[in-house]
């Protein structure tokens, strides 16, 4: 002891560094090598398992679609106060016109409509209808410009006016039929400063034609939206007299004429498309869901909703999910319990029979395991229905009257029976493998020391089989929480699980955000329960085999 304390200075390795850091370096190399060995698996799991799950869960808060599709409207709408009971200003309506016009060219407006329809009924058709009619608004200006001068009808003239000289030269030189890329549009600088809106709109149009439609810009007439922007710009009375490029004469002429143009009253025009555009609710919904991320899906998943005054509970007749979560947990517990009750004796018999008989019985346990899930569930339908085998037998035996047959299916009972049967092997197998390792001599020893059969089982055998119960319970419980085919087929209305709603929102309503939120909550609940189990029982006590 004393020697050790005297030589307590750091031990040195041969190269003069401390032994500790030298060891660490060696270990680090080793760890790195080990990591490289498992790297293929790790990357595989990350790419095919973790990343998709993370991506899916991310959808529960993702909401960029609103601000991406209506960028101008949502920016302007940020300052609007809906509680005052007044509609947004006409600038907002004009921004909405621009946004919807571009969105319908890109065919994105209906997608946004279905997104917002989850929050407010009727928005889906509102956007579909508006997308069809929004072009009419721009045509008011288009017609007036074109009537004023034929110059405005021609796409070549527009390109000459809006595009830079170098781009124009490239575009003219470009052969439509060749494989070469179409020269990307570049705006003319003077026009950009004179007519900022027109230039910005035309750029969006040019980008769309060249990159999304992949058509020749020289042959595409500009959108009606470009004419509206030109009108707005000219109404600002820019100084066009200094501009001397292509189309300067026509621009000057248009400048003089726009004052007399018939103008579009955007709020009124939108009301004509659908009176819902003059409903505060629609605007408040757009405003509430403008941010890039939303808690809306999660609130919805716990029967709440966003309102202008913060989150609030949904009305009683729309509350569903909390009830389903509780039901799912409760029924999974019941199923786990009945699996323990039925599986324990079976596993005990299997573990204590001679190997030959045990193997034969084991096949009987495994046989249903190898049968298709749908076949087994359908078989339960035949067994359990009111005109089914069990009821027929009971009526024949005189246990129940013919007119009061038992309802064993399309309710909770049906789900519990069918799922207990389906999940039973997951309980029996871990139990069996744990029981196999308990030496029978322990029981004999207990009895020889004077214990009754019950005491010997309860005090000696059972505690040793608990790790098997733990493993089986975790397997059965977690599997049953995520089940949806069996509850859908035999559960009726009272025996369905939260996973049935998740499946519905994934495959039918396409509300993936809500499905992701429900799934995230379910995942959190399972992890929470797992944590609690670890704290109470200890995860080290779980054994899947000897």
């Amino acid at each position, binding site marked *: 002891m004393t020697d050790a304390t005297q030589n307590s200075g750091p031990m040195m390795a041969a190269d003069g560094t401390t032994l500790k850091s030298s060891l660490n370096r060696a270990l680090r190399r080793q760890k790195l090598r080990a990591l490289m060995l498992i790297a293929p698996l790790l990357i595989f799991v990350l790419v095919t398992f973790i990343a998709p799950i993370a991506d899916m869960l991310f959808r529960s808060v993702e909401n960029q679609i609103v601000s991406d599709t209506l960028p101008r409207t949502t920016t302007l709408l940020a300052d609007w106060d809906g509680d005052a009971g007044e509609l947004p200003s006409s600038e907002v309506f004009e921004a909405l016109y621009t946004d919807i016009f571009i969105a319908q060219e890109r065919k994105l407006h209906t*997608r946004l*409509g279905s997104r917002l329809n989850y929050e407010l009924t009727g928005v889906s058709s509102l956007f579909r209808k508006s997308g069809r009619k929004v072009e009419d608004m721009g045509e008011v200006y288009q017609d007036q410009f074109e009537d004023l001068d034929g110059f405005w009808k021609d796409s070549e003239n527009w390109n000459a006016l809006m595009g830079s000289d170098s781009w124009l030269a490239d575009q003219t030189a470009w052969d439509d039929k060749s494989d070469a890329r179409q020269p990307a549009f570049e705006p003319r600088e003077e026009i950009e400063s004179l007519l900022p809106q027109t230039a910005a709109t035309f750029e969006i149009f040019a980008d769309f034609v060249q990159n999304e439609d992949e058509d020749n810009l020289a042959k595409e007439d500009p959108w009606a939206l470009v004419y509206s922007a030109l009108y707005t710009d000219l109404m600002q009375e820019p100084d066009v007299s200094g501009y001397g490029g292509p189309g300067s004469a026509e621009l000057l002429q248009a400048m003089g004429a726009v004052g007399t143009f018939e103008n579009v009253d955007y709020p009124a025009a939108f009301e004509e498309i659908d009176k819902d555009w003059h409903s505060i609710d629609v605007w408040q919904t757009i405003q509430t869901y403008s941010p890039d991320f939303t808690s809306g899906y999660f609130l919805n998943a716990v029967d709440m909703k966003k309102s202008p005054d913060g989150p609030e509970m949904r009305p009683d007749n*729309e509350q569903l999910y909390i009830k389903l979560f509780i039901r799912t947990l409760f029924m999974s517990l019941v199923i786990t319990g009945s699996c323990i009750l039925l599986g324990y004796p079976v596993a005990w018999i299997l573990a204590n029979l001679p190997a030959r008989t045990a193997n034969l019985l084991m096949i009987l346990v495994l046989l249903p395991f190898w049968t298709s899930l749908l076949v087994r569930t359908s078989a339960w339908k035949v067994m359990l229905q009111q005109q*089914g085998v069990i009821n027929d037998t009971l009526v024949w035996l005189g246990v129940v009257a013919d007119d009061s047959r038992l309802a064993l299916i399309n309710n909770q009972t049906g789900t519990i029976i069918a799922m207990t049967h389906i999940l039973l092997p997951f309980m029996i197998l871990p139990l069996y493998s744990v029981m196999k390792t308990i030496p029978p001599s322990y029981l004999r020893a207990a009895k020889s020391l004077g214990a009754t059969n019950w005491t010997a089982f309860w005090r000696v055998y059972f505690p040793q089989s608990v790790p098997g119960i733990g493993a089986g319970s975790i397997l059965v419980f977690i599997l049953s929480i995520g089940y949806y085919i069996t509850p859908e087929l035999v559960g009726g209305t009272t025996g369905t699980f939260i996973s049935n709603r998740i499946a519905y929102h994934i495959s*039918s309503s396409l509300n993936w955000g809500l499905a992701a939120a429900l799934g995230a909550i379910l995942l959190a609940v399972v992890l929470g329960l797992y944590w609690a189990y670890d704290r109470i029982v200890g995860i080290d006590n779980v054994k899947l085999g000897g």
Partner: protein
Amino acid sequence: MKLTKTLLASTALTVAAGMATADGHMANEMTIVSWGGAYSNSQQQAYHNPYMEKTGINIINDESSAEAVAKLRAMNEAGNVTWDVVDVVAADAIRLCDEGLAMEIDPDEHLAAAPDGTSAEDDFGDLLVSDCFIPQIVYSTTFGYRTDMVGDTPPTSVCAIFDTDAYPGKRSLEKRPINNMEWALLCDGVAKDDVYDVLETDEGQQQALDKLATIKDDVIWWSAGADTPQLLADGEVVMGSTYNGRLFSVIEEQNQPVAMLWDAQVFDLDGWIIPTGLSEERLARALDYIYFATDTQRLADQAKYISYGPARASSAPLVSTHADLGIDMAPHMPTDPNNAQNTFLYNYEFWADYRDDIDAKFQAWLAQ
């Protein structure tokens, strides 16, 4: 060294083989998605077999129509659409069109005209409910009842489902609000023309749910089209709703004591869409198939195998007899004048708007 070489060589071979099969797929195969069962069989006989014979293209069947919308969205996000032509119901087609997952098809440009020269657009008429959708058949959701369980007074009106005194026993209804809400209002005294005006309001939705509540304990809710035929055949229910083709097969092909109650049947459409994002070559093939499969004669041919009405007006007179049973198919069509005395057409626009909202209320009501 040797190992590396072998590895390299085999990798190169695999890549080459992979590219070869990918090319092969492009050359002479197409994947068509449909519903499976008797319905896919009718398409196989009426469309796929003659088309394969004519062109030498191999058609691969995928029975995923029930999840088509979700799967197409996933494929689109992954940027790898593997389906060429997809069979969906009209409501799903509208949804796919809204989401930009199905491409718009101009009927006059891409479809055959009727034999008498009527343009495709006029021949399909009002059934072209979406720009992306080529209707194929008209089917209906209607009721069948057990002839041996209704006594001497078989039901003649849809309201028999709410009359548990006259027709005791369970009924089967689909586990969704669509159709059930309309029938409930209709039997609660709402005039047929007002049904959707009433259903727009919260009170109207509550009224429909209250009417359904009167039989809630007597209903088995189904989610697969095969459920009601099974329940009827087993005598589990006295009457139930399902697709008319399923009932035809129970009655005529399996000879069960079941009869049709056509009253207030709801017409719906099923047809083709082409996914967006196909390569030019695959798109051309898909359009060629659609042109072939939706002409007047082919649509009429399909009715030989299943009792759904062809979507073209010009096909109706060509409907002949069942391919195996030899019975005349016209009286079994939902569109036959005798059957179509009182009908609804699925209100696509209404349900596109109200589906999410009413479904939430309906499911909450079911769970109570």
